[in-house]
């Protein structure tokens, strides 16, 4: 074997490069590890998740799962995670609506609407989210009138310093029975879809579109049957009312939650608006012309021709905006909404368990991100063009 060929062999060099890389990585990691152990030893700390069972002994201002100060740190972190998920999910739903509206408005033939949308997008995208959140919280939410002079909006919704009161629904005793009917109705839709698809495969002739009416009538029939058995409504509307010094009934959005949600939705909506605008503009003009020459109306063209095609372009960037919203919800700490990051910060301050907390935090956000992008990827694959 020729020695020269040995170190000129590309395969050998590749393996060598990887070995060197791993060696460097291991050495760095070892150096860091040695430092960490020494630093921890000096501070008298140990690494481990034992502290998670200790009582947290701090209060959390809002929580969607039962929590008391005597619960464990682990429970406190769960409360934070649930709070993060709630604001993320509600935020994603609302921001999609705002984004699509603003994106379409930017293409409106109406000058005022167009300019208004452009100004919204321009200002929101060019200023930091944290400052926007602080403005909405300190500058708006906390400056709302006191409970006595609440601003009333149709609904009735009341805007006050102590939060926003919206009408809410309450389950009555017939709720469980109704839940069964609704589940049955939804199931029936899937069964109809399955049966019709089977029928389509069997017959050589296309099925009459009238069969699609089944999708409407069978679920309605099930609900109607349910109503005949259990006439009492499953939900009672409860309307906020002024009672003494506070509102009773309804659902209270805390100022922190309201400001965070409003800020996140407005911020992400501006980015989604740009994506929607670009997506619509990317649909070839010939498509619109062809649709018009087939006699479709403007709204039909938009709904049936432009939007489905624009959607394909829009989904990947919109996904990353959803992920941004989830990640940006960590800025809640600036206005005191008890999300995962803020509670993790409190837990760290009490226990000093820096490494453990950061690992928990990063893994939670990472799985939230991965889960969202998984869902969006499934959706994306469904709507992608199927090429022959």
């Amino acid at each position: 074997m020729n020695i020269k060929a040995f170190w000129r062999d590309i395969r050998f060099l590749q393996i060598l490069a990887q070995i060197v890389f791993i060696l460097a990585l291991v050495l760095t990691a070892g150096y860091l590890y040695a430092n960490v152990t020494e630093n921890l030893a000096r501070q008298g700390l140990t690494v481990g998740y034992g502290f998670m069972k200790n009582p947290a002994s701090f209060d959390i201002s809002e929580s969607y799962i039962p929590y008391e100060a005597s619960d464990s740190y682990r429970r406190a972190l769960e409360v934070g995670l649930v709070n993060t998920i709630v604001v993320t999910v509600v935020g994603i739903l609302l921001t999609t609506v705002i984004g699509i509206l603003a994106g379409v408005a930017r293409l409106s033939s109406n000058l005022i609407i167009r300019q208004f949308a452009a100004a919204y997008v321009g200002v929101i995208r060019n200023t930091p989210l944290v400052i926007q959140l602080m403005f909405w919280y300190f500058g708006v939410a906390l400056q709302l009138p006191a409970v006595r002079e609440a601003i009333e909006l149709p609904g009735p919704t009341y805007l006050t310093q102590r939060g926003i009161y919206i009408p809410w629904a309450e389950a009555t005793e017939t709720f469980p029975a109704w839940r069964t009917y609704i589940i049955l109705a939804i199931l029936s839709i899937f069964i109809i879809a399955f049966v019709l698809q089977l029928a389509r495969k069997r017959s050589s002739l296309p099925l009459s579109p009238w069969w699609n009416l089944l999708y409407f009538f069978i679920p309605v029939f099930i609900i109607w049957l349910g109503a005949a058995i259990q006439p009492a409504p499953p939900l009672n509307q409860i309307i906020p009312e002024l009672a003494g010094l506070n509102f009773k009934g309804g659902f209270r959005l805390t100022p922190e939650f309201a400001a965070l949600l409003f800020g996140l939705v407005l911020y992400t909506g501006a980015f989604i608006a740009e994506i929607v605008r670009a997506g619509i503009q990317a649909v070839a003009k010939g498509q619109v012309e062809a649709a018009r020459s087939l006699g479709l109306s403007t709204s039909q063209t938009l709904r049936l021709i432009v939007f489905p095609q624009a959607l394909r372009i829009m989904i990947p960037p919109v996904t990353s905006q959803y992920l941004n919203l989830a990640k940006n919800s960590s800025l809640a700490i600036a206005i005191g909404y008890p999300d995962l990051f803020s509670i993790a910060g409190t837990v760290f301050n009490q226990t000093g368990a820096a490494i453990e907390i950061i690992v928990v935090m990063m893994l939670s956000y990472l799985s939230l991100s991965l889960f969202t992008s998984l869902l969006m990827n499934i959706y994306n694959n469904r709507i992608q063009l199927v090429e022959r």
Partner: protein
Amino acid sequence: MAALEMKPPITTVGPLAWLRKNLFSNWCNALLTILAIWILYSLITPAVAWSRTEARWGVIEANLTLFMVGQYPRDQVWRVWLTIYLLAGLLGLSWGVWKNAARGFAFIALGAGAGFALVSLFFKWDVWTQWVIADAILLIFYLIGSRLPRGASFAALGWLLYFPAVFLLVAGSGRIASLPPVEMSAWGGLLLTLLLTIVGNFGSLPLGVLLALGRRSKLPLIKYFCIGYIELIRGVPLVTVLYMADILLPLFLSVDVRPDRVIRAMVGFILFEAAYQAENVRGGLQSINRGQYEAAHALGLNGTLTTIFIILPQALRAVIPALFNSFISLFKDTSLVAIIGLFDVLRVSRTILAQSEWLGTHREVFLFAFFIYWGFNLAFTYGSRRVEEALGVSKR
């Protein structure tokens, strides 16, 4: 004949036709117009009324220096002015040398300088002279730059030396008597925000390029390490990375090294931004035609040389718009350092709000902070668009 009975067409030009076309083209649009005007009116009138009567704008004037430089020693502020003069000179030089490409930024700087000078004159602040000097320096260096032989090398060298020079000027040094060291904890305001932005962006670029190359590498170990790093960082919020840098960095370093908080934040930004820069650069790498690799190999260049001299210059040029975008987004993101306790524009705003005579001026202060970011981003977007146009990278 029907044609003879047709009335003359309604005007297609003039203000009435314009209104018709843009605002009242059909009943739906007319309704929208009226609704929009009503909403705008009901939003704007209280806002204007508030800003003219209730708002206490004095809070801005009283704290302007705090907004700009934080707790930087007041007798050393001339050092910050010096960095502005240097920037003006370099911009002027670049404008003279590269003409079109640097013109946007030079115009912005000229306009901003003139605008600040006028505002200062109006409010009788004595800093107007500094802004006039900055503009004068810019113009003088423009004249020098357009006549200087080999000006391009001078300008490039100038930019390369500028950032270390700024760091030296702002931080000071124990060895130079006229530049006493200034504690990093005293850095603040817009000064800190801009320093973090610049360090975060330029510091992360080399790491980002390495990660992007690593991600496209054929060696599995390197490739998967890079993918793992990029996806991990992109999956977590910036604030957790900053928090990690703030808390864990001292733990990971040896016992006698205790970096300042500003340095820790800078490390956090670099680690975070590198993942995003890597994805930007990867986009550029993917846009390179295979023929370029083949041609380079045919010329006898090996892999490393091909990457350095053929691929990277083209790839980086192709991603200039993306790099400008991340500059802007990082500029906005620096406001998160307020959460870990650094005195950037946002944190300074909060300390102002804690001053007893300015309690309850949240709207004024946050609106001003908005205005700083918004104005800067607008100016930067304008300048960067001119650069992209001059280089022809925005459309291809």
